[in-house]
Every structure is written in structure tokens, then in C-alpha cells.
């Protein structure tokens, strides 16, 4: 079953065509990886999916619904969560508060109730907390629960950000370079987590990644981009051995 599909996506930034007719399908339960040299348009595609950018043309389909014109804050509610290449956590809040914000897509808007903190609000907060605690257990973040994000090392922040995305209970998780800035060991841990997210939580993963060891370890399918165009797609090995891909990385 196709969970997500990009159909002939095109984005122009002024005179630059950052994404040029990219199409791909992500099957439910897959780990789908987009690779490509710097400036290939990988993160731009993520920003299109999370609706931070509007595509010049083309369509985004999620669960057979067109989400090309859905406002950005609706995306999480529909079941797509993401992380960012350079970590966009709420730094002056604790890990727990960050995770609870991940529950915002499931929050109800009851301003008057919240103002008085009625029992209904309290009950909902407890439910959100239970959901956040499940993620804390899943990602082994117990020790950092009450730490402020500013005081955490980079590797932990990366995991916290993934946890925040998991708190939205997504069907599709977008990971923007999950291994960037991580040590070799942390990258290996990340590979295990991505596999667990797929197999234990049943979440489809779409990621952008440079680290080929991680890509080969977890990806079911790989798409290679360069200058906004699709170079190749297929299994990790096929794509890595594709002559166009080698040329894009090594020149020549």
C-alpha cells in the first residue's frame, strides 16, 4: 500500500529550480531514504512535505489524500511528523515539556477550561503524560526527563527531537539527517532505533541521510537526487553502484 506519494514536484526559488519534477512513492512500513550531494534538494523536499514551502507545481499525496495545499499546522494532525537537520528543539524547556508539545496535535482547544485548569484538563494532561512516558521508555530518555535542552549534549538532543516527533503518533516520520553530528556509536544506536520505530511502532520512515553505513543498514528503498532531479532509485546497493550516482558524488 502506498502511504505517501510525491507527484512531479517542482519548486523554483527565483531563477533556481531546486526540485525539478521529482516523483516517488513510499510504501507503508518502509524505510525510504533520499540521498544526494549538498544542494540536491533533499531538505527542500522535506520542507515541501511539511508545507513550509509551497511547490511551484506537482502534488503531495498522503493516504490517498491531496495535502499539497494543507496548512503547515495541519500536517502533524494528519499523521506526518518530522525532525530537523540542525535540531529545532525548544531549548529553554525541559525534555518532558518538549515531548508534551509533541502531543499538541492531539490537544483539544478548550481555552476556558485551561484557564481554570478544570478536572477535564487535568485528565487530558495525564493522558498526554502517559503517551510521552511511553516514548521516554522507548528511547531510553529517563535520565534526561527533567533536564533543560540547552544543557544536553548534541547526540541526546537528536534523540529527544526524534522522541518529540514520535509523540505526535505519526504514520509517516520524516528524519532529516538523523546521524549528522553524531559519533560512530551514536549513529549505530540511531540505526537500531530507526529499525525499532519501523518494526515495533509500525511507523513508515522517510529520511534524508549522508552516512552510507546507516543508509545501507536500515533502508528498504533509496532515492538518489542531484540538482533537484532523480538520478536513481532502488535498493541501497543498486543505487550506490549506479554510475550516475557515483558520477554525482565523485565528479567526472
Amino acid at each position: 500500500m502506498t502511504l505517501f506519494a510525491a507527484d512531479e514536484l517542482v519548486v523554483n526559488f527565483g531563477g533556481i529550480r531546486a526540485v525539478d519534477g521529482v516523483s516517488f512513492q513510499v510504501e507503508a512500513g518502509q524505510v525510504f531514504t533520499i540521498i544526494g550531494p549538498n544542494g540536491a534538494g533533499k531538505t527542500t523536499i522535506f520542507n515541501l512535505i511539511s508545507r513550509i514551502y509551497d511547490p511551484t507545481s506537482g502534488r503531495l499525496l498522503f493516504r490517498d489524500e491531496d495535502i499539497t495545499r494543507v496548512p503547515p499546522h495541519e500536517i502533524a494532525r494528519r499523521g506526518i511528523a518530522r525532525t530537523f537537520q540542525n535540531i529545532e528543539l525548544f531549548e529553554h524547556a525541559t525534555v518532558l515539556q518538549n515531548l508534551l508539545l509533541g502531543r499538541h496535535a492531539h490537544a483539544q482547544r478548550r481555552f476556558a477550561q485551561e484557564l481554570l485548569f478544570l478536572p477535564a484538563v487535568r485528565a487530558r494532561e495525564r493522558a498526554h503524560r502517559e503517551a510521552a512516558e511511553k516514548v521516554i521508555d522507548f528511547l531510553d530518555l529517563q535520565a534526561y526527563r527533567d533536564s533543560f535542552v540547552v544543557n544536553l549534549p548534541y547526540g541526546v538532543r537528536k534523540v529527544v527531537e526524534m522522541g518529540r516527533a514520535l509523540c505526535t503518533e505519526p504514520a509517516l516520520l520524516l528524519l532529516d539527517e538523523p546521524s549528522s553530528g553524531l559519533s560512530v556509536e551514536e549513529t549505530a544506536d540511531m540505526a537500531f532505533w530507526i529499525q525499532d520505530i519501523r518494526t515495533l511502532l509500525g511507523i513508515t520512515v522517510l529520511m534524508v541521510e549522508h552516512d552510507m553505513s546507516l543508509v545501507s543498514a536500515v533502508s528498504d528503498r533509496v532515492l538518489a537526487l542531484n540538482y533537484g532531479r532523480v538520478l536513481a532509485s532502488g535498493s541501497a546497493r543498486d543505487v550506490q553502484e549506479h554510475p550516475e550516482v557515483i558520477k554525482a558524488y565523485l565528479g567526472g
Partner: protein
Amino acid sequence: MRFAFKTAYEHDLGLFRDPVQRAWYAALLAGVILVPLAVPAYLSDISLVFIYGLCGLSLMVLAGYTGLVSLGHAAFLGIGAYAHVYFAQDLGLPWIVAVALASVLAAASGVLVGLPALRMTGVYLTIATLAFALIIQEVFTRWDHVTHGLKGRPVDKPVIFGVSFASDWAFYFLCLAVLIAALWLTANLLRSPTGRAWVAIRDSEIAAQSMGVHLARYKTLAFAYSAGLMGAAGALFSHKIGFLAPDIFTVLLSIQFLLMVVVGGLGSLHGALYGAVFVALLPVLISEARDLVPAWAGHAAAVLGKSVGDAVYLSLDRFVKQPGLEPGIFGLILVLFILFEPLGIYGRWRKIWLYFSTFPLYKAATFRRQKTYMRSERLR
């Protein structure tokens, strides 16, 4: 160092960290209730601290928690004040109703400012609020029918359900009650999804949006709530000063509110109150200093001779009687705090507290801010 031993999620939902903290706040409340017995002469000044506390709370929600800096909050205070006086004195509505309506009206004008402000960030937003404040001040001057223009209008003492709050101590408790209610409501919001959404917008709009926070809704809500609190503060403020005139609600007053939240410590309710105490006390300190000038000059004359004493007297006297002294000192303090203690009085207090509670293991680097990585805020 004491660690709160938590055994249920409920412990994190309470307003207080643990019974010890609750006991401290109860002690503080008892102290504040006993103040009228101890210093009856200063009750009126302390009421002003409470009103300023409300103002600080209002701006803290907007600037400290949502990250939207406003230089126009005196306008909301003015709207609240004039609306309250109009509803209570011209229309003869009951006090509570007049305050509620004034608050709602201020909140509505907050939405009005908030809507265009959604497209602006940082300093542009601040300038837009400043422009709004200037326009509103002009409205106060021209709208004779309601505001009585430059002539100003006297304000009656508050009478609630037939009970007069004219005396200093009654008004003191009225202000205290409103402040505590506002603190409670705000603390409730901050521990709910709304408060988290505000903090998220402050720290990273793009991530907040990706987590499903409707930026426009929550920014407008922050503006409305903040302005509504300011409106309630305005109603009390009108009774405190007893006479409304357009030149009270100047930009300088807005700057004082901003000073409150920055000096108190952005992003904490404590900070709003510390800032209020500070801003309300500073003019008192300056005027005390003015009165002390002859005494200082006298000391200088006694030690260094009459000619030096006269010179000291002249220069000090000229200094303390400079027309722009107060705003100048406010500005200087604001700059010094931003340079040396961006976390404000509350941040300093936290550091001192942590120093003693972790002694001798305190790390100076605990509060050092790390260089953050490049952020995708640039995308916008």
C-alpha cells in the same frame, strides 16, 4: 540539594513542586496579608506594586513566554482604564461588570494589534506596537466624549456590591486579590497545551508549526490574553491614580513595562513580580536620593572644605534635577541587565540558590549559554 521525589504524574501537574514550596508560598501570602499592620503608611505604594505586577504578568505572557516584544502596552492599560471609568461612571454599570468589559475591550484591541502583527517578527513587530500606542494616545486626547480629552477625568473610589474600597487597606487587598487571581489563571494556562504552544513559538516557530501549533491562533491568543490582563490592571490603575489624562499612558510607561519583564527575568512569573517591585521602587529611590543631596554635600564640606562641598552640592543637585533622569536611569539599567544578566533578577536568584544548594559542587558553566547551531529560522 533537595530533589522532589515524584511517585505519580499528578506531582508534575500541581502548581507547586512539593509541599515545602507550597509552605513557602503560604508563608509569603501570610506575610503579604500582614503587611498592612506593619507599614500602614506605604499601603498605597505597595498597591501600585501589585498593579504593576499585573502589568508585568501581562507583558511576561507576551514577551517572556511567546517571544513577541511589545512597546505599546501602556495603550492597553489606557484602554482598560478609560473603558472601566466610562462603563462604571458614565453608564453606571456595577464595578465587576465594568472591569470585565474593560478587560474584554482591551483584549479585543489586542486581537486587532495581533492580527497584522502575525506577519511581523522581532523589531518590526515592536515598532508596530509602538505605532499603535501612539495612535491610541492620540485617540485618548481627541475622544472628548469618553476621555474628556486633555482636561482629564477624575475617577471615583471603587464600590463593589455596595462595599466601598476607598480606604488604602481595602484597596490594597482588592489589588492583591486581583493579582493572585491573575497569577493563578496564568499559571494554569502555562501548564496546559496553550502555554506550551506559546513557549514553542518563542523557541522555534518552525518546529512549533511542524508539531501542529497554529501560529496565527496562538499568537493572537497571546496578544488577547496579555491585553485583557492589562485591561484589568488599567481598571485598578485608574482608581490608584484617581485621575485619568492621556499623558499618563505614554511610551515611557510602555518602556517601564518592558523594563519590568527584562529586569525581572524573561520567561518566569516570578520575574514579572520582581520587575514590578523594582520598577515601582526605583522612582521612590530616586526621589529619596534627591532629598539626600544637601546631606551628602554637607558631609563633603565637613571632610574636604566648604568650596569642595559647594561644588559637590551644585553638581549633584544639577544631576538629580535633570529632567530626563528617570527614563535615563531606566534605560541604563535595561542595557546593563541585557549585557550582564540576561536572565534578570530571577535568573540571578536562581544562580545564588543553586550555588548554595549544590555547594561546593556548583559549576560556573551551569548557566552558560552554548553556541547554538545554525537554525532553520532562516528559512522564513
